[in-house]
């Protein structure tokens, strides 16, 4: 009896860890793609906020969660286009312009929320989509195969992105341009077009991450993401710019969050220490970064604008 209760708790914690990891995973996959092409985007959190609000508002209006996801992606793509223009054409300093995007997203999403919604009204999240047969498996079924569709999408993107990066000419171009854009240019690969596409797709994923978050929580409020976008950037370094590494990082982060939540629920952590406990994921991330990230080298051309003959 006691044992089966413990198992239940553990299964539920892991399942919720996977759910919590999803927005991180989407956002950091997008960021990893951009960084592999040599462009740093510190504005992920702002893009997520706009995506989150857009999705939330769309669902409020239409009651269609899929429309919400599409709006999230769409907003991400538009900001991506804008960010690509200022970093690639105008060659703005990437560290600073990314912060600009973040502040824009933070302020704009709140402004739109105040103007068009005002008092928060909840929306219904996705129903879990049980995978036939597999979801019926004991333990594993509940842990892995009773999630909402967005969770499956996010995790399916991991092998997809690995495949694109390593098996397609487009992926080869991205990897080459992130390391030595001159070499790629000298062989007739368009640095501009490749970076544009990587940034736009990356931001689209960030928008999707925001939409996923808003729909999962069923609500929007000011600064809903609470700096999740910045964690996602850290996870890219933690994951050594590989989709698999980023996935592992996101899972660790999601699980730690789930464990902290669970502990709070059961009163393992006294209320006085709950703020400290909330910091645990961030602290663990920083420690992991210090230990792990030093061993890997970032793309050599990261944050460096490319000018032919320059």
């Amino acid at each position: 009896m006691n044992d089966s209760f413990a198992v239940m708790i553990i299964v539920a914690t892991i399942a919720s860890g996977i759910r919590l990891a999803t927005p991180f995973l989407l956002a950091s996959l997008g960021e990893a793609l951009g960084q592999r092409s040599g462009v740093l985007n510190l504005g992920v959190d702002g893009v997520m906020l706009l995506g989150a609000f857009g999705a939330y508002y769309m669902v409020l209006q239409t009651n269609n969660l899929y429309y919400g996801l599409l709006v999230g992606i769409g907003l991400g793509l538009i900001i991506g286009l804008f960010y690509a223009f200022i970093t690639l054409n105008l060659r703005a300093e990437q560290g600073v312009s990314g912060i600009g995007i973040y502040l824009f997203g933070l302020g704009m999403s709140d402004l739109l929320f105040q103007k068009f919604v005002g008092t928060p009204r909840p929306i219904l999240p996705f129903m879990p989509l049980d995978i036939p047969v597999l979801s019926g498996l004991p333990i594993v079924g509940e842990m892995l195969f009773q999630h909402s569709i967005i969770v499956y999408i996010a995790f399916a993107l991991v092998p997809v992105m690995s495949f694109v990066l390593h098996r397609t000419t487009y992926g080869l171009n991205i990897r080459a341009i992130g390391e030595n854009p001159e070499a790629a240019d000298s062989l007739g690969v368009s640095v501009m077009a490749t970076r544009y596409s990587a940034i736009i797709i990356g931001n689209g994923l960030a928008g999707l991450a925001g939409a996923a978050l808003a729909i999962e929580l069923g609500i929007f409020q000011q600064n809903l993401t609470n700096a999740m976008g910045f964690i996602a950037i850290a996870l890219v370094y933690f994951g050594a710019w590989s989709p698999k590494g980023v996935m592992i990082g996101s899972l660790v982060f999601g699980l730690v969050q789930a464990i902290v939540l669970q502990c709070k629920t059961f009163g393992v952590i006294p209320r006085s220490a709950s703020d400290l406990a909330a910091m645990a994921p961030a602290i663990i991330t920083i420690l992991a970064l210090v230990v792990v990230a030093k061993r890997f080298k970032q793309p050599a051309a990261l944050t460096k604008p490319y000018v032919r003959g320059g």
Partner: protein
Amino acid sequence: MRGITKKFPGVLASDNVDFDVRAGEVHTLLGENGAGKSTLMKILYGLYQQDEGEILLHGKPVQLTSPANAIAHGIGMIHQHFMLVPTLTVAENVSLGLKSTRGALTDLKTVSRRITELSKTFGLHVYPDEHVWKLSVGERQRVEIIKALYRDASILILDEPTAVLTPSEVDDIFVIFRRLAEDGRGLVFISHKLKEVLDLSDKITVLRHGRVTGDTTPAKSDRHDLAQMMVGREVKLAPDKHEVETGVPLLVIEDLYVDGDRGRHAVQGLNLEVKSGEILGIAGISGNGQRELAEAIAGLRTPQSGKITINGQDTTASKPAKIRKVGLSYVPEERMKDGAVGDFDVKENLILLNHNSEPFCKNGLLNFREICSHSEKLVKEYAVKTPSIDATTKNLSGGNIQKLIMARELSAGPKVLLASQPTRGVDIGAAEYIHERISQQRQRGTASVVISEDLDEVMALSDRIAVMFDGKIMGIINQEDATRESIGLMMTGEEQEAASV
């Protein structure tokens, strides 16, 4: 290429230049930095567009608007700075930018097979699955050649391909170049190294200030003729040498260990002794500890162990200011980073050594009258070409900045002169002048150390030549006994005993 003209703001980089290359020949473009060689080739490779003139390929006029376009026309370029992605494999590097037979998917198997074939045909020894970062400089260059061959280049532009190679690697690559020419390709060889130009070329075109100043062949010209065409006047390739009695050792280095920026021990147990009135040349490929050695002597890098003595005083790990006081003058490798302040004007750079002491400074205030008269004197004495002593230093040419640094350092009256790559990137005229000045230090009784990658420079200047490899001195030879071969062998790590026999 006919009547090619290209203007940049303020300069005519290429002025009505005619140039042609035929199948089966090596045609050299010779000229100093800024003579317009690179501009001309960048036009041919589609990186720049000419303002006037036309390019004919196989007799037909073509518009080359981008590198991709040039490649499609069978033009390949081996860049001076390799255009390779170190994190990718050889096959990935080669396939970059190519249309894959499998559509959006890469087709590394086909590419690898073809690379192996080409490698066998031309004796390149390139292996498709290796990561480029693991390859030596010579191997990387052969990957570049494969890249061009893979794209069926019928014209190959070789932009200073020997700049980073050891003498024996140069011999090997020349054999390959010859083979490529015999195979019916046209090779354009860009260089300013006279000996190599004479060794390899069928035809030579000399450029100066964007104009063709001579067309010749190796049979008709020797090094002096070429140098004269490049510079436009008589040039001395080696400074005159007066017999000088060497005196007491002024620089002594004992069992020195210095750490590099990455990893340990860039200099490993090095011993050297340089006497008054002699010039010791240190030859070797960059990155074998020369920079760390120079910085340790100058006090910019703390040695891990060992001892440096300058003019009888232990200066190991002393502060640079103290080492300078003991009598060291230092001409650093990176003149714009460590040698001069680009945004300062000429007179400010000229007094940087003693701006803190009289007569240039009194009670904490700069004495501009003294500074100006001193600077005027030095600028004249060292033939620094500058509009005035108030000109901003970074606007001068590399050669003139180097002369300015020499003026400052030599006017301090050094006991020990340490000059690192003194003429790298400097035109022949200025190099000739700098060599003359260093050579004169022998009569003053200075102990000079010249660190250089340029073997000709080391051999022309030095009384003794030390060869550095992997942080150690492989051997020291007297100038009379030195040959390119013996030094070249030591540069690749052969000990002297084996090399000098």
